[in-house]
């Protein structure tokens, strides 16, 4: 598996889109902060020119990290079926489990490699251009990353699985979205009528991270209370992520182990 990971890292370093994503995201963030700074400078009583408001965009929507993880995974592996490069690895005797886990690891490393400069730009430009003060602090933003990390990894593992399992990427994307967002939404709506579904619904990240449904997530202009503020809340985030990684990992290993390629 080590050699497979090394070779995939070699390829990833030569994938222009990986650098493109980092550059585009950093650029957009920089532009956004610049635009907000300009608006704040020239518009009286402009309420959004604060670092707190900027941080709240990420803090209020932790699932954005899952989307980012999937996007990066898709950039790396969306063409697998078309190119058939994975066939060479299988024909060379690398086990499908190693290939699956290798892809997860390479995607994860790539995500972190992109996350670090993007977050650095985010925090630096917010500190530089925007005024301080407000309910959402840098600490909330920094603590969000460990809180959401395992959930994002589980979204990534699911992403590797669906891209591998479905010949057509669009079906894989839909299945991924349905599992991470569709089913939780249906469950939470059903739980309003059927009380017994409530606890199951609130173990799903899209629900317990939701500003609309979760009582532990209140991120507004005037206040900020997040699930990872309490040790129990943080434990729940990590536990849900770990369960997701385990479930989707097992699903991937079992389903792809026998799949015809």
């Amino acid at each position, binding site marked *: 598996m080590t*050699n*497979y990971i*090394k*070779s995939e890292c*070699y*390829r990833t370093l*030569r*994938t*222009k889109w990986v650098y493109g994503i980092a550059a585009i995201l950093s650029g957009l963030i920089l532009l956004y902060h610049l635009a907000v700074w300009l608006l704040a400078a020239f518009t009286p009583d402009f309420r959004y020119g604060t670092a707190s408001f900027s941080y709240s965009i990420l803090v209020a929507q932790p699932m954005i990290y899952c989307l980012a993880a999937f996007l990066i995974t898709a950039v790396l592996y969306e*063409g697998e079926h078309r*190119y*058939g*490069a*994975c*066939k*060479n*690895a*299988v*024909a*060379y*005797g*690398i*086990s499908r489990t190693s290939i699956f886990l290798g892809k997860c690891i390479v995607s994860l490393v790539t995500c972190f490699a992109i996350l670090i400069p993007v977050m650095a730009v985010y925090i630096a430009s917010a500190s530089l251009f925007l005024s301080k003060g407000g309910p959402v602090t840098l600490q909330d933003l920094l603590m969000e990353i460990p809180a959401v990390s395992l959930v994002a990894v589980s979204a990534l593992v699911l992403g590797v699985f669906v891209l591998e399992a479905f010949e057509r990427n669009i079906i894989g994307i839909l299945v991924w979205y349905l599992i991470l967002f569709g089913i939780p939404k249906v469950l939470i709506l059903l739980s309003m009528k059927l009380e017994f579904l409530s606890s199951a619904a609130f173990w799903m990240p899209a629900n317990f991270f939701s500003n609309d449904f979760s009582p532990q997530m209140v991120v507004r202009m005037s206040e900020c209370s997040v699930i990872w503020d309490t040790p129990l809340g943080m434990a729940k985030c990590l536990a849900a992520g770990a369960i997701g990684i385990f479930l989707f990992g097992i699903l991937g290993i079992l389903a792809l182990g*026998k799949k*015809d*390629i």
Partner: protein
Amino acid sequence: MKEYVIETKALTKSYGSVLALSQVDIHVERGSIYGLIGDNGAGKSTLLKLLAGHISASSGGILLFGRGEPKELDRCRRQTGVIIEQPGLFPNLTPEQMLEYTRIQKGVPGKEKVEENLKLTGIREKRKSKCKNLSLGQKQRLGLAVAMIGEPQLLILDEPINGLDPSGIIEMRNLFRRLNEEKNITILLSSHILSELQHTADTFGFLHRGRLLEEISSDKLQEKCTNYLNIMVSDAETYAILLEKYAKQDIFKVLPKQNIQIINPGRKPEFYSQLASDHSISIRGLEQRHTSLEEYYMNLKEEA
């Protein structure tokens, strides 16, 4: 005792109710070039995919280098280079990068292997082009270069000369022979260009509708691909009696439409026309022919 690099035992693969491969037993000897012959849909690619581990068998077994346990098979596949259906290239990598990627993946030490394989397969001038900009033939060559990384003992190649121009075909054929003779690499290749296989392979396997019709060495095939004389006469029945009387050593077949086929005729064609005219049988046509590999395969199919 013969040493087989590939051996299958009653290998069967079905997709739902469609039987793609049925009870196939092939035997690929070490150091041989084995040509797999079959029409589209005969099961060639299915068989090669099973050997490469791309798909799993419905029943039956595979032995690679004499080993058949799943984990052992994976280990044995490390001595194998494969191209099936398409060479499996990343479009945005250059051939040089593609080979380096494969070298790292296979854990082959020494970057010079990349250069060696680029040279070996004649793709060196295109080393810096993106794979997506290569022609089909160049992709095939690069695919072979990728398969050759790690100096495999066995190459499994599905239609490897597809898309090559005539000189490319000759170069590739020579390359196969060189690899086989100099490095003792066993090669299993399939092709729909039967005459091409006839020039390259020393053993043949004929697949038809998922079944292996025959496995035969090129020497035996040579014997079977015989000369024959096809004579169209006015009265085939009487002529057959005459042949039995005057040309006892000849083997012949009475075919429809007053045709008689004499296999490996022992005498010159004039003898047979003279025999007919001496007994008032008119000759409507006389043709001396040689059974080609194509015809042999067609006959096999008809018999099946």
